[in-house]
């Protein structure tokens, strides 16, 4: 416990206000990691080509294109008379990001509401939780085409196509949010509940003034997972729907040409990875801004 804190300044809101030195250190370490990864990649490539080892898989310029080749592929058009790959990919990223963001938002809302409903009834919990858990064992990829075919006609015009994929992204997002919202809402200390009783607080007041704020660390822990899950859901959803406009479509297409132009698929994967990380980072930043807790109490 901090004792003579009279001298301490007001709460440091978040690391958004870190001094320049700490920022450069962070960026520096990211760069270092990237360089190390590239180095490892090329090293692996070199060693395996030298020795001719075939386990776990054969290494050549097709299975493991040089990093530089991948990098170059961004600047070149994928097909004749097309804009450079990077431009095309960025458009597709925006499309997929739209689906993922919608899925994330709606999934988080549904998950949170489910958690709020379930926390008030042990009976409902026992009745529905097994199925909520079980819902995640259903291979969404297999259902995706049927979902798309069924949902699409029922959507208003501008939402068609990507809207169905957003539904799939929602499906993958809501589960961790439900589970963690439930846990978080239940995690209040009994004394705090007693305190609210001394105020004659209604159930509603207890929920919104105590349980929900108390559950935020858990909620954000789930949102971090869901951020990635929504991107995964968006990509998976696009695959069987034959949607060309997103990253999933790009992956599917470039997969056909893999033996000829492996670097294009790799380039797409790099962008997809960055999208997943970007979503994750956004949630982490939001958490830093919103959740005010003792540093050691963040879930």
């Amino acid at each position, binding site marked *: 416990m901090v004792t003579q*804190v009279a001298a301490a300044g007001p709460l440091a809101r978040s690391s958004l206000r870190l001094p320049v030195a700490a920022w450069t250190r962070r960026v520096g370490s990211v760069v270092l990691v990237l360089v190390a990864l590239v180095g490892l990649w090329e090293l692996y490539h070199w060693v395996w080509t030298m020795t001719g080892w075939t386990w776990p898989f054969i290494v050549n310029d097709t299975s493991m294109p040089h990093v530089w080749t991948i990098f170059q592929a961004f600047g070149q058009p994928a097909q004749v008379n097309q804009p450079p790959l990077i431009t095309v990919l960025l458009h597709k990223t925006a499309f997929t990001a739209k689906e993922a963001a919608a899925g994330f938002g709606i999934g988080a809302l549904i998950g949170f509401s489910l958690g709020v409903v379930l926390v008030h009834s042990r009976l409902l919990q026992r009745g529905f939780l097994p199925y909520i858990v079980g819902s995640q064992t259903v291979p969404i990829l297999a259902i995706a085409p049927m979902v798309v075919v069924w949902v699409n006609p029922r959507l208003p015009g501008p939402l068609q196509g990507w809207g169905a994929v957003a539904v799939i992204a929602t499906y993958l997002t809501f589960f961790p949010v439900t589970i963690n919202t439930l846990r978080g809402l239940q995690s209040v200390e009994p004394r705090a509940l007693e305190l609210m*009783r*001394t105020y*004659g607080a209604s159930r509603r007041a207890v929920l919104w*003034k105590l349980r929900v704020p*108390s559950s935020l660390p858990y909620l954000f822990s789930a949102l971090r997972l869901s951020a990635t899950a929504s991107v995964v859901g968006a990509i998976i959803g696009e695959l069987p729907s034959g949607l060309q406009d997103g990253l999933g479509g790009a992956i599917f297409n470039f997969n056909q040409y893999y033996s000829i132009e492996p670097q294009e698929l790799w380039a797409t994967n790099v962008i997809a990875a960055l999208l997943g990380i970007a979503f994750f980072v956004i949630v982490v930043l939001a958490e830093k801004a919103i959740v005010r807790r*003792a540093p050691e*109490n963040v879930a």
Partner: protein
Amino acid sequence: MSVGSPDRSVSETRPDVVRVAGVTKTFPRGNVTALQEIDLELAPGEFVSLIGPSGCGKSTLLRVIGDLVEPTAGSIAVNGKSARQAREDGDYGIVFQEAVLFDWRTVAKNIGLPLEMLGWDRARRRKRIEEMLALVELSGFADHHPWQLSGGMQQRVAIARALAFEPALLLMDEPFGALDEMTRERLNLELLSIWEQTANTVVFVTHSISEAVFLSTRVVVMSPRPGRIAGHVEIDLPTPRTAETRDTPRFFELVTQVRNLLRGQGEHLLPEEEALG
């Protein structure tokens, strides 16, 4: 038999703030009789300490008064109403041994919690919060968060919160139990000075004999198995009480009286006998 400062003299015509009659509480699990036939009356302005060994039911009694525990038998009246009504009307404030502050609220917002529940508007809340912060001498810490404060400071915030809506009754369950002795003694003085300004009735549960004698106008000694009241000791120490009060012979005498009651060795002094010296 006068207690406290002159303007707080107990008048027989003022109704009791708390009236406990024949209250019994048994816990089915383990067949524990936590309280047996407790009778207790608190007049307005009294500062009453409940003291006794573990298992004597002092915390349970406090909770019965606060309608946090339902008695198995007997009746409670707080401010002339049932305990439940008193709780719902916000007639008392409570301070626990842990501060139970909300980490996600600033100190100011923590103090404002009961006021929000009572539906006060923002301006009125802000004014009262400022007053409370001044009362517990934490005016510079309004925007701090609980984890930035020491244990003693957190308890002061908890006290400010409990008094924010000016309840007639203040219930305190070993509020300084988790603090070191120096902080505890300091907070005792502060509590008395706050009490002088707010003039509530206080029910104070403690383990410490010297604390009970120092703070109270009356000490109620309880004994366990089953929990019951062993006796009362009226505390006629002069006010305002200071750190020096602890060094006076009268203080020592009263402490000894309480201690003897706790040990169960005779000397169950009734108030009348006490006054006769």
